[in-house]
């Protein structure tokens, strides 16, 4: 058991600071984006799951080291401290100006993760399946394509398979499928992969002493040119509540009147 490959496996986890999932977002009057000032932010829920899986791999002695990385404004460091408190060994913050944050595309993040994964010889990169702000669902796949590594996206179960492969169950449209990917590989976490732990107070205190490296896209040599321009952000059409019906027979007759029921 002692030379189980895991002994040396290094895991990189991408975490993003997003508007908290429970917040009802509002579109800015200038239609350039949504209101983010004085709005509760937290770690993207899918990234919490990605991080939890990485920490579990470490606890199972499959992984040796877990490094959390976030690409964003200075406040992204709060999310990285949370990641450290939940079990990451160290953190990397790739800093962008507040003004530039809205121009960051998944491809820029993927380029940064690709550079770090290659330079520092990571064996696995785990990200959340999507960020709940841009809902893009791209970073993991872009990264895997750039590195020409296999991808296991929408993972709901991850197991080591020998010393050089992972067996991953994925959530697909009709149910589940199971694939085997060769390391190094990119994974993305779906909701059912695990239940993330809470950071305990002692661990939050300890996290303050863990290393947090600061880099910029320029340090990594990342091309930050824009490929997507947001022309306008608007409110979706508003649905009006139609009111209550008193009983089941009335409901059925109303639906028949509408022609949606025969």
């Amino acid at each position, binding site marked *: 058991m002692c030379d189980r490959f895991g002994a040396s496996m290094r895991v990189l986890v991408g975490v993003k600071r997003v508007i908290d*999932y*429970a917040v009802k*977002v509002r*579109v800015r009057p200038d239609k350039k984006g*949504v209101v983010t000032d004085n709005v509760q932010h937290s770690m993207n829920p899918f990234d919490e799951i990605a991080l939890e899986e990485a920490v579990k791999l470490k606890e199972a002695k499959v992984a040796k080291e877990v490094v959390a990385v976030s690409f964003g404004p200075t406040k992204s460091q709060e999310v990285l401290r949370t990641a450290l408190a939940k079990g990451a060994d160290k953190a990397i913050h790739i800093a962008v100006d507040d003004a530039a944050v809205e121009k960051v*595309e998944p*491809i820029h993040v*993927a380029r940064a993760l690709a550079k770090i994964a290659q330079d520092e010889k990571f064996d696995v990169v785990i990200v959340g399946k*999507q960020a709940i702000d841009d*809902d*893009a*669902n*791209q970073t993991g*796949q*872009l*990264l895997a*394509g*750039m*590195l020409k*590594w296999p*991808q296991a*996206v*929408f993972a709901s179960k991850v197991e080591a398979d020998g010393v050089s492969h992972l*067996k991953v169950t*994925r*959530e697909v*449209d009709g*149910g*589940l*499928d*199971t*694939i*085997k990917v*060769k390391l190094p590989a990119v994974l993305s976490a*779906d*909701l*059912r992969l695990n239940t993330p732990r809470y950071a305990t107070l002692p661990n939050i205190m300890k996290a303050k002493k863990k290393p947090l490296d600061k880099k910029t896209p320029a340090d990594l040599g990342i091309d930050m040119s824009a*490929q*997507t*321009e947001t*022309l*306008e*952000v*608007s*409110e*979706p059409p508003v*649905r009006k*509540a*139609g*009111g*209550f*019906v008193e*009983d*089941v027979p009335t*409901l*059925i007759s*109303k639906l028949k009147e*509408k022609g*949606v*029921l025969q």
Partner: protein
Amino acid sequence: MLSSRSLLSRTARVAGRRFNSTLVVAEHNDDKLAPVTLNAISGAAKLGADISVLVAGANATKVAGEVAKIANVKRVLVAQDEKLKGALPERVTDVILASQEQFKFTSIVAGASAFGRSVIPRVAGHLNVSPISDVTEVHSCDTYSRPIYAGNAIAKVKSTAPVKLITFRGTAFPPAATEGGSATSEDALKTDINVELSEFLGQELSKSERPDLATAKIVVSGGRGLKSGDNFKLIYDLADKMGAAVGASRAAVDAGYVPNDMQVGQTGKIVAPELYIAVGISGAIQHLAGMKDSKVIVAINKDKEAPIFQVADFGLEADLFKAVPEMTKLL
């Protein structure tokens, strides 16, 4: 001078248009085409270029015959290879890249399903371009709308990527007609498919006689209010009486009442049926993201303050354990 210049620019425009071309990556299970591909073809048609469809699979020839009859499709590229079983993204990407090398498409698109979302951004990574996910409206060949923040805002974006990599939200585009087309069919360029990276081990699909959730005309969904998996029988009985598909909220999936492929919402299926009946579902932001474009929404809930009532055309404040069986009986 002026006229010659305008003639020149018109020639350039016409020539440019002739060379614009779109590749739709077909989704299928080696037997049948996935319905979302028909929606993706309608989305692709709005880009205003000739449409080719790539059918890659272990049994691609059969599906390719079906695809050649779809309206608006000009050419079908068939890549039949045992190695493509299970449609692994690494292997399908190899085939797409070979076709792209040959034809230099200006857009490569697919439906925004688990398959499309796996493959399109991976191809984008190889080509080093920014993809655009889950497009709900096409304004021109480079400008699109897509929902962000769980559908609580709509972003209108312009892509300057040299090749547009797009997934289309199925419910936002009508399905293309399955008859009336007469596409030419040819073998896709043979390429080395890397089989080292990944391997398909198997799948466990939920079997159901009911219509497909994503395309059903009527959907009945249950939530935490059902209290148990056994009680979901009430939902199935009502759905069967109506010929409806059955969906669920995340709470119902997490509680183990139903499998996760039934989840409707931001991270599950997006549906937009004629009639959506939400039973015992409070209406969290993440659930609304998956169903608020339904034509008529009905909510059955005993909590009068439940947010679902704010989007429902017809609300019934009632105990679902009484109302649902009554409804099944009366239909």
